[in-house]
């Protein structure tokens, strides 16, 4: 009989190696000792610019959101102490769901405890063992896990390749094995490289084959489209998208997630989906801050505009430095490709020492085995912040390449 932890020897060794390279700075377990603002924290005793937090709207320290959270703490207490199915919903749950439905122009909305559970809950709620889920190869792990939980037949298609989906749908139709319904899952902005789904191409395939289309707008909700309704709004294809999923931990600056749609039976997901039924609802303060933040997203389009400007500035400056980027089009996710795993870890560490925190993303969690320094931009970054991030990247990441070019 082997030790249960034997299977983790490789992963533990890899982590030890990373810790040794960074003198104990833990790239995957970094601690922010104190938060100074949405875009500043004290890390290792140093004031650091946060360029890896997904705080797209910089809303985490918004006074109105904080006030709403405090009032909810006073009125409803610290926790909900159980599942909404078993132990009941609070008025603020309904308020949040109505606010989100209004924002998204959808008939129905269900709030989940986390964004991860939103994908689990929606996919496992929509698809069952007789159905088939088609998922993009670069999908977030919550989508993969939701698919597994659903028990549906799973077919993976090549990333952002509508023709490939078309081929696989045709193959399934010809196999004679198809029994139930079809669900196709896409993401508005993919979290690692910051690229968008070519939604119009997929809608063409939908018209040919017919399926329910779900778009996870985790990174695009509040960000894309004139009103922040995500890729579906930006592309003018909202009527073709049957279900929308999103998270509160990015643009909303809280914790939780949602699923929304217009199907007349939508609400049955509450009584059929395990990730909704068998978990405690998020805390009253989180529910209340999320509701206030949704109102802010609607009322303050200038946040979106600032975010767009900041993302464009960082993207263009990085391109000018000759950095290899994950995506040719600016989005709030801007990933810089590192040459290999050890160099990328060393670069991440030097960036941190110079006062800029970004995410490090390594295989197998990345598309095409890429080693990435993943930045996320915030509306709360100033132009000076963006320029400082660029300057540090020039010194740390672009430097060796410039040296080579100058030889």
């Amino acid at each position, binding site marked *: 009989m082997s030790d249960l932890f034997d299977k983790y020897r490789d992963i533990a060794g890899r982590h030890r190696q990373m810790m040794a390279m960074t003198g104990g700075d833990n790239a995957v377990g970094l601690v922010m000792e104190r938060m100074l603002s949405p875009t500043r924290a004290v890390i290792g005793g140093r004031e650091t610019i946060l360029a890896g937090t997904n705080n797209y709207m910089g809303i985490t320290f918004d006074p109105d959101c904080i006030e709403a959270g405090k009032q909810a703490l006073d009125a409803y207490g610290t926790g909900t102490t159980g599942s909404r199915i078993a132990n009941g919903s609070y008025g603020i749950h309904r308020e949040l769901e109505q606010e989100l439905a209004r924002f998204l122009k959808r008939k129905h909305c269900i709030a989940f405890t986390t964004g991860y559970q939103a994908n689990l809950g929606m996919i496992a709620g929509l698809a069952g063992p007789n159905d088939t889920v088609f998922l993009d*190869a670069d999908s977030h792990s919550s989508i993969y896990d939701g698919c597994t939980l659903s028990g549906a037949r*799973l*077919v*993976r298609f090549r990333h952002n390749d509508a023709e490939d989906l078309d081929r696989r749908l045709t193959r399934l139709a010809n*196999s004679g094995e198809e029994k139930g319904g079809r669900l196709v899952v896409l993401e508005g902005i993919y979290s690692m490289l910051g690229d968008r789904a070519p939604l119009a191409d997929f809608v063409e395939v939908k018209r040919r084959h017919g399926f329910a289309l779900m778009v996870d707008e985790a990174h695009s909700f509040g960000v894309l489209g004139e009103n922040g309704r995500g890729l579906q709004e930006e592309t003018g294809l909202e009527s073709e998208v049957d279900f929308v999923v999103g998270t509160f931990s990015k643009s909303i600056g809280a914790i939780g997630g949602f699923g929304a749609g217009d199907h007349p039976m939508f609400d049955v997901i509450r009584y059929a989906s395990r990730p909704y039924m068998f978990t405690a609802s998020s805390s009253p303060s989180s529910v209340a801050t999320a509701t206030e933040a949704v109102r802010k997203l609607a009322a303050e389009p200038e946040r979106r505009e600032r975010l767009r400007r900041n993302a464009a500035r960082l993207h263009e400056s990085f391109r000018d430095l000759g950095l290899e980027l994950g995506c040719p089009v600016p989005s709030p996710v801007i990933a810089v490709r590192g040459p290999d795993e050890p160099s990328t870890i060393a670069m991440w560490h030097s960036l941190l020492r110079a006062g800029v925190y970004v995410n490090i993303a390594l295989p*197998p969690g990345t598309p095409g085995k890429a080693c990435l320094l993943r930045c996320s931009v915030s509306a709360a970054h100033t132009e000076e912040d963006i320029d400082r991030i660029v300057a540090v990247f020039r010194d740390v990441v672009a430097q060796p390449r410039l040296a080579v070019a100058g030889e």
Partner: protein
Amino acid sequence: MVESKEQIFEELSRLIAPFNIKGVPITPATDIAADLNIDSVAVMDFVMEIEDRFDIDIPLNLLAEIRTMDELTQVVRERIERGGSA
């Protein structure tokens, strides 16, 4: 034309080469994940290559039951016969 078991195995050995970084010799008994040290994403990418080469569909749910190259060969053969499209 439906390929023989040997032809399918040979073709699968060719398709797995880019994922076999350490150059481990491939036999029917090779355990795809353990012997080749292939991570779960690479296994799924390998399956996608197989699907396209043989024009078959191998649902991800089946993967948990497939360990060795021989088992994979069997599954591919069955699915070619069932689909009749290869």
